[in-house]
């Protein structure tokens, strides 16, 4: 079984490669020029998502493709995001179809969903976020790529779309909240204690990738992948225990900040200027949803193997200086 993993040197890509190697796949990783993968049994293909010829060469002789590569930076020009995340996704899918690949797993994001009000339940059939409301170029480009992938699936491409939540795991400090700031022994959280964080442990997502390469009935469908819809208060308790950090949480008044954002937005609007902060941005960061993953459970047979406590323990253990690392090299 031969599989290409794009973005193989990334945070999620590394876990996917590990899992697929363990399952007996022969893995080829597509990474940018200069990157060296740490596994001797993984073939390296060099090229970026703007390079159609490199992608075509990389998918050659593959049975499966996992498209985990994306531009994830928080800054940059729109065209850079569009090139990597939209046109890159199109190139990968078109090249894979032309090469006769059996399945293409596209890694999308929970950010594609609209959260119309606090407390809503989201399924794969829920509405997309509106294009004009998406937060920043990354979310906007992932939204477009998700639509594009399913559009290709409607036209016969064997595409499966996975929408994981907020990724955490070894190799990256877990986020404690959507927005947080540390000041004088306090962690200021822009959240309500009952806000639900859609946490996804990186290896649990890698499990879903492996399952979706084989599960009958998965092609053409999107799957939401959230380990636990954990409340902010529960996460803070588990996070402090796992990290052994001594800060105390301080919940910022969300309603007051949303009202202030509304006022700032209107004031800038009167001056016909774009506000640096919008009411929608605050609401989108603080209105929580319950993400229903029953489709992934029923069709993929997916259940999060690693729970929050264990996931946080592994993530923080890996951050300690003594922890053995799995480094992705960069050629000098």
């Amino acid at each position, binding site marked *: 079984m031969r599989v290409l993993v794009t973005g193989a040197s990334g945070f999620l890509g590394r876990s996917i490669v590990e899992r697929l190697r363990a399952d007996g796949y022969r893995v080829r990783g597509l990474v940018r020029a200069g990157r060296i993968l740490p596994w001797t049994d993984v073939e390296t293909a060099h090229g970026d998502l703007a390079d159609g010829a490199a992608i075509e060469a990389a998918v050659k002789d593959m049975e499966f493709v996992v498209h985990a590569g994306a531009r994830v930076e928080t800054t940059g*020009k*729109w*065209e850079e995001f*569009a090139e990597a995340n*939209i*046109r890159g996704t*199109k190139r990968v899918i078109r090249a894979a179809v032309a090469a006769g690949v059996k399945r293409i797993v596209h890694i999308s994001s929970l950010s594609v969903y609209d959260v119309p009000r606090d407390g809503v339940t989201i399924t794969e059939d829920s509405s997309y976020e*509106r*294009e*004009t409301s*998406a937060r920043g*170029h990354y979310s*906007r*480009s992932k*939204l*477009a*790529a998700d*639509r*594009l992938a399913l*559009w*290709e699936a409607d036209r016969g491409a064997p595409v499966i779309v996975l929408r994981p939540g907020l990724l955490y795991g070894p190799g990256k400090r877990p986020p404690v909240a959507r927005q947080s700031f540390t000041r004088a022994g306090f962690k200021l959280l822009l959240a309500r204690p009952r806000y639900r964080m859609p946490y996804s442990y990186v290896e649990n997502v890698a499990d879903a990738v492996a399952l979706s390469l084989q599960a009958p009935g998965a092609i053409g469908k999107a799957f939401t992948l959230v380990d636990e819809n954990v409340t902010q208060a529960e996460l803070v308790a588990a996070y402090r225990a796992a990290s052994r950090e001594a800060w105390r949480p301080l919940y910022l008044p969300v309603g007051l900040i949303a009202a202030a954002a509304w006022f700032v937005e209107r004031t800038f609007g009167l001056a*016909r200027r774009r506000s640096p902060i919008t009411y929608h941005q605050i609401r989108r960061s603080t209105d929580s949803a319950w993400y229903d993953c029953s489709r992934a459970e029923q069709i993929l047979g997916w259940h999060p193997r690693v729970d929050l406590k264990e996931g946080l323990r592994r993530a923080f253990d890996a951050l300690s200086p003594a922890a053995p690392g799995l480094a992705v090299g960069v050629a000098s």
Partner: protein
Amino acid sequence: MSSPTRFRVALLGCGRIAHVHAGYLRQVPEVDFVGACDLEASLREAFTARWQVPTYAEIDELLAASQPDVVHLLTPPATHPRLAVELLQRGVHLMVEKPMAFSVAEADAMVQAAQIAGRLITVDHNRWFDPVVQRARHLLESGRLGSLVGVEVFAGAAVGEADLPSAEHWKASLPGGILYDLAPHPVYLLLGFLGDVKDLQVVHRSDANGHLEEVRAIIDGTRCLGSLTISANTRPFANRISLYGSNMSAEVNLNNMTLIVRQTRQVPKLVGKVLPNLDEAAQLLRATLQNGAEFVTGRQRFFPGMGLHFRELYRALSEGRPAPVSARDGRNAVWLLQEIWKRCGVSMVPGPGRVASK
């Protein structure tokens, strides 16, 4: 009552007019503005930065990732027929920026493609919806103007090659030269008041390079007689419509957005010399103050007819009614412009556009 249908709307073309479309689309309740497409990367970057929507480099990407119900076709007119047919065949409804096409044959092919695909095609005859034109139409439709006796439409500006953005710009290769750029708006406005054309007489003048400079057309329409003046040599830039009715007359100034109504008053002869001027001055002052207030408060912007057109269009579509500008309206405007230009000796094939020697 069922909620109105919403439409996912995208733009093809991210040039200057696309920003105007985007601004007005944002205000239409039935519209989700979902993206835009252009070959030029710098235009895409600027468009996304301003309107916060995804932009795409290819039609294929636009259709796949935006999945629009309606596309506004805002590319240069010479590209309209090819792109319109492609988009219609791929299942979207079309709003085409004016002119719909250069030739009737092209316009007919677009209409036929829409019929085969079972999709709508409409044209952005936005000045027909300008508030001042709407008020003039109301005067006519309500009967206050009486029966319509004559219509004069004037479009004039001192335009020339110096006004072109560059020698490569699409306006540099319009049929007959840059004068064509002034022509589509007055042509559809004239047709809107005249009805169908029964007879047409045309005179024209050209410059030393063979480019059209002055065109005058006299038209016998099903509703009344009309005239059209398009000039490349007049200052200041002017767009006017004069309506002559059996009860009163009205003059629309499209640039200054004023409507002056003139009517007969039973007053002594001397007063009759003064009162009409005072009346016109009062109408101008009132319109100027109103326009000024509306611009300052943001209630009115440039191309106001476009916003009103879009509102009417999408409300009509959500209620299952025909578009306010039909494909036939667009095709008829293309036909009249082609016919006038033909009588000036200009073929509607885009190119240098020189007038054939007589």
